[in-house]
C-alpha cells in the first residue's frame, strides 16, 4: 500500500546563503533514486515536507520551478528545531523530501491575464518558482504583462539577488524591487514599503490577477491597496502558512474552518478567505 508519509531520500547538492544575516539558505536537493524525481511532479505554489531523520519534518514552499530539471530547491529560514539543524548540514548529507503537497497558484485562471506578483521578505520562494515558470519560453506567451513588486528590510535581505538583477534587464517582466530603508548610496532601486510601492507602480487591475506572499503585516496593508486599484477578491491570491505535520489533510491541526491549509491550500483567494473563520 502506498505510504503518503514516507519521504523520498535526497542528497544536498548545493547550499547558497541568501541573506546577510545568514538566516536564509537555499538548499538544492538531488533525488537518490532518479525514479522519485519523476514522481515528484509539482506546480509552482506547492510545498513539500523536508524530513531530517532524528529531527522531524518542516513544510517549505518549493522554490525551484518544474521547468528546472534534475533537482529541487527550497529556501529555508532558520527558526525552529528542524530548520536550525538543516542550516548546519553540509553538501552531500542525506535527508528526505515528501510531496509535492497542497494546491498551487491558479495557473488556468491566470492564462491570458496580466500577472501582478507581490512579495515580501523570505516569502518570495514560491514566487521565484512562479516567475521562472512563467518566463520559460514555452510558458511566457500564455501570460500578458508580468509585474513584480518585491521588498525586503534592506538590500542584504533580498533573496535570489543574481536572478533579480537578471530579471531587471529583461523586457518581458517589469521588476519593482524595494527595500524598507537603506544607507547604501549605490542602491539603484526603490526605497519604501511594499504596499506603498504597489500603490505607486501598479496602475490598473484591468484583466489582472495578483499573487501576494509575505509577512502578515505586509498582506494586511497591501490588501486595501489592491482593492482600491480595483482587484476583486477573487483575483487576489494569497498563500498561507500554518503549523503542519502530515501535509495531507489527515492529522487535523492546520485547519481554517473546514479547510486544511496543507491540502485545500496553502493557496486561497481573498474571496475564499472572506467566507472562512479568520483564524490564521
Amino acid at each position: 500500500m502506498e505510504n503518503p508519509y514516507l519521504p523520498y531520500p535526497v542528497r544536498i547538492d548545493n547550499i547558497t546563503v541568501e541573506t546577510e544575516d545568514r538566516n536564509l539558505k537555499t538548499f538544492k536537493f538531488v533525488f537518490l533514486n532518479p525514479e522519485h524525481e519523476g514522481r515528484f511532479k509539482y506546480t509552482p505554489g506547492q510545498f513539500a515536507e523536508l524530513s531530517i531523520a532524528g529531527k522531524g519534518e518542516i513544510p517549505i514552499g518549493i522554490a525551484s520551478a518544474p521547468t528546472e530539471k534534475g533537482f529541487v530547491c527550497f529556501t529555508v529560514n532558520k527558526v525552529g528545531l528542524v530548520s536550525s539543524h538543516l542550516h548546519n548540514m553540509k553538501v552531500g548529507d542525506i535527508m528526505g523530501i515528501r510531496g509535492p503537497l497542497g494546491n498551487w497558484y491558479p495557473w488556468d485562471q491566470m492564462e491570458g491575464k496580466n500577472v501582478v506578483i507581490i512579495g515580501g521578505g523570505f516569502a518570495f520562494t514560491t514566487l521565484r518558482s512562479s516567475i521562472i515558470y512563467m518566463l520559460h519560453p514555452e510558458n511566457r506567451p500564455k501570460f500578458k504583462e508580468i509585474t513584480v513588486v518585491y521588498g525586503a528590510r534592506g538590500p542584504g535581505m533580498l533573496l535570489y539577488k543574481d536572478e533579480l538583477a537578471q530579471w531587471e534587464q529583461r523586457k518581458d517582466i517589469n521588476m519593482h524591487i524595494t527595500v524598507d530603508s537603506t544607507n547604501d548610496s549605490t542602491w539603484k532601486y526603490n526605497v519604501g514599503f511594499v504596499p506603498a510601492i504597489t500603490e505607486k507602480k501598479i496602475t490598473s487591475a484591468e484583466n489582472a490577477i495578483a499573487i501576494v506572499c509575505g509577512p502578515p503585516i505586509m498582506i494586511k496593508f497591501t490588501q486595501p491597496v489592491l482593492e482600491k486599484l480595483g482587484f476583486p477578491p477573487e483575483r487576489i491570491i494569497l498563500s498561507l502558512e500554518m503549523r503542519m505535520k502530515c501535509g495531507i489533510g489527515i492529522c487535523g491541526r492546520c485547519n481554517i474552518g473546514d479547510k486544511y491549509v496543507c491540502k485545500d491550500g496553502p493557496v486561497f483567494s481573498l474571496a475564499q478567505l472572506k467566507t472562512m473563520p479568520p483564524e490564521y
Partner: protein
Amino acid sequence: MTTMLFSKDEWGQGLLAVGKSIKVFVPVKEGDFTAFQLLAEETVPDWAYQNTRMSPKSIVYPQSEGMFKYSLEEGDPEANIVKEAPKDYTLQAVVGIRPCDAHAFQIVKRNFDNEEFRDPWWVQRYEATTFVGLGCNEPCATCFCTSVGGGPFGKNGLDVILHDVGSRFLAEGLTAKGEDFLAGLTGGQAAGEKELGEAKDLEGWAGEKITAGISTDQLKNKVVTQLFNAPFWEDVAFSCINCGTCTYLCPTCWCFDIQDEVFGKKGDRIRNWDSCMMPLFTLHGSGHNPRDKKTQRVRQRFMHKLKYYVDKYGNGIQCSGCGRCVRFCPVNIDIRQVAELMNNY
C-alpha cells in the same frame, strides 16, 4: 444472514478457540473502569459493562505508533534514510464493542481513508478488524446515540451484532466478515422465534431508556463565520482547564502529532494522538499561534465536530453520542448544551 444463539459459556469457549488464530479483544474490568483487553486463557470478560472508559479507537489507531525507523550510524550506507517500520496486521476482532463506538469508526474513516490519501496504518488495521457489537440493554444516562444517527442496537459499522438475552447471546451476522467470524465459532444453535422476539423487545426498551438528545438539524444552514463569532464561546470555554480528556476519550477524535525520537544511533518517527485543547497544537515555528487562547481551542473542538465536519462531508456530525466527554469532563462542559447553543444561534 445467519442468526445464532450461544450460551454465554459457549460463547466464551468459542472466542478462546478463535483467539488462537486471530487477536480477540474483549471488555474486561480494571478497577473502577472497563477496558478492552486481548483475550487470554485467564481473561474474564465483562459482558455486563456499560462502556469502556477509553474508547476502543486505539485498537485500530494506537495512542503511539511507530511510523518509520532509521539509522544515524556514521558509515552505514542507509544512514539517515527513513524506512517503514515493520507492522503486524494480524486479523483481529473487537468483541462486545458498543454500537456507538463502531459507528465512530465510520465517522473517522472519512478522514483516514479518502479519495486522495489513504492512511496506510489505519486502513490496514481497520481492514483486519471484525467488529462484533454488543447492543446496549442498559444505555447510560448520558448516551445520546439515537439523535446522531445511531441507537443502542445500531448496526452501522458492525459485522456482527449481539443481543444479550439473559443467559445467552443472540448473534446476528451483518456482513460477509461477520458471517466468517460466526462460522469460525464452535457451538451455537439456530435462534427460534421466541429469542428473535425477545431481541426485538430489548431494542424497544433500550430505545426508550435513552432520554438525552442533541439538536443538530440547523447546523448545516448556519453561516460558519457567524457561528465562529457567536457571543457564547467565552462563557462556554470559561471553565475549561484545557486538558485533553475529552479528545483522548473521544472515539471520533483523530488528530495526531508526528515526532522523531532517537535512542543512541537508532531513531523512530512516531505518531501520537494529539489534542486541539493543547496550545502547542497550532504553535508556528515563528512563535505565532492562531489558537493561543483557550476560548479559541474550545471553539475549535466544537466547531470541528458540529460544523466543519458537517460542512465538509455533508454526512452528520463528528460525534457518535457515546457521552464519554459529558461523563468525564472534569468541569462538566456538556456537548449537548453547546450543540443546542449552536443549533439555535
